[in-house]
């Protein structure tokens, strides 16, 4: 099975070439990760034009900072982090995001969210996601789809781990409510 999205890895040769500013290498990076970066930015922002803009800015950052990539971790993971940071920052600056302060976050101890298979009642999950608040949708995507830990998500937002955990529970709660109403 062919790797897709951020699972795709480029050769060290391409990365080294990119570090020297080789345009062909930069193009290869862009063509490999542009779609998946857009997909991530779009899933979080819910806005096509904004997501396109985010991808452009993220790649400019990738090209500018590629020299700082120290080859310790995954190159795709490094790009993905830049895209996530760019998305969160842009969404914040576009005033689309309301960040709840930790004191506002109500601790959740529910045990009713997954008792029934309520997703069966939903025919269009994509549409449903758009109904969520941007914060809820972002954390749902980052944790459940992209696999970031609550600690990593908290650092993206400059918030506590409990903020991430509670917002995730809230996202599921909102999804369920929207479907069942």
């Amino acid at each position, binding site marked *: 099975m062919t790797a897709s999205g951020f699972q795709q890895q480029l050769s060290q040769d391409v990365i080294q070439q990119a570090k020297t500013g080789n345009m062909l290498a930069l*193009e290869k990076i862009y063509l490999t990760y542009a779609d998946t970066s857009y997909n991530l930015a779009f899933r979080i922002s819910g806005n096509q034009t904004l997501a*396109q803009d985010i991808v452009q800015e993220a790649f*400019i950052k990738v*090209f500018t900072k590629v020299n700082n990539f120290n080859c310790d971790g995954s190159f795709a993971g490094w790009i993905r982090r830049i895209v996530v940071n760019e998305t969160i920052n842009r969404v914040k600056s576009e005033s689309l995001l309301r960040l709840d302060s930790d004191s506002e976050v109500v601790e959740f101890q529910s045990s009713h*969210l997954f008792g029934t*298979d309520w997703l069966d009642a939903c025919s269009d999950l994509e549409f449903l996601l758009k109904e969520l608040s941007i914060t809820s949708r972002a954390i749902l995507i980052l944790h459940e789809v992209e696999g970031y830990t609550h600690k990593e998500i908290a650092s993206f937002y400059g918030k506590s781990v409990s903020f991430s955990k509670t917002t995730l*529970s809230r996202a*599921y709660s909102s999804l369920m409510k929207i479907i069942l109403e």
Partner: protein
Amino acid sequence: MHLNDEQLLELDDDNEYHISQCEECNKRAKNLAKLRKELKNLPLKSLPDKNWQTLKQIYSTRNYKAEPMRGISSGKLWPVIGVSIAASALLMIFTPSIDIFGSKALSQNQQIVALIEKNNLLQQQLVDFMSAQDKEKIHGSLIRSQLSLIDQSIQHVHLKEGSSNELLQLWNQRCELMKEELSQQPNSHIIRI
């Protein structure tokens, strides 16, 4: 006692064991797994209008502007803002040799100095305008290429100790090119020099 939703969302070893023993929590865990699978299987959205050439132009433009921060060794620094200053310096170096040609040469030399100042102001306006207008990036690189060619000719004249007349023509050409460029831009106001 059943697991709460947060425990279910982040299972540790104890909770895994609980799930294996508790029918109710097992069912809830399966529902959650199904939700997660659906989320992961959302169709991939492809970037509409994926255009490498445009991104390349934007990157080159910004990189180009950032060049002066990287030091003078890069050849790209010269055409951006350094040309007039550098040329002025060269002119000062060559001034004694130009002077020996007499008062006509001296007068041309003064004209060149005035033209360099004019070029500096026009170039500043052009740089300001281009950085304010995202849409001008592609066209911006064209004007920079043209300016770069003239700059190279100016350098060449200096290096071969060419005549003031040649320099005068080149600086004039440079000035006119920027004036023309600025006059074509909507909402641009060329400052009278």
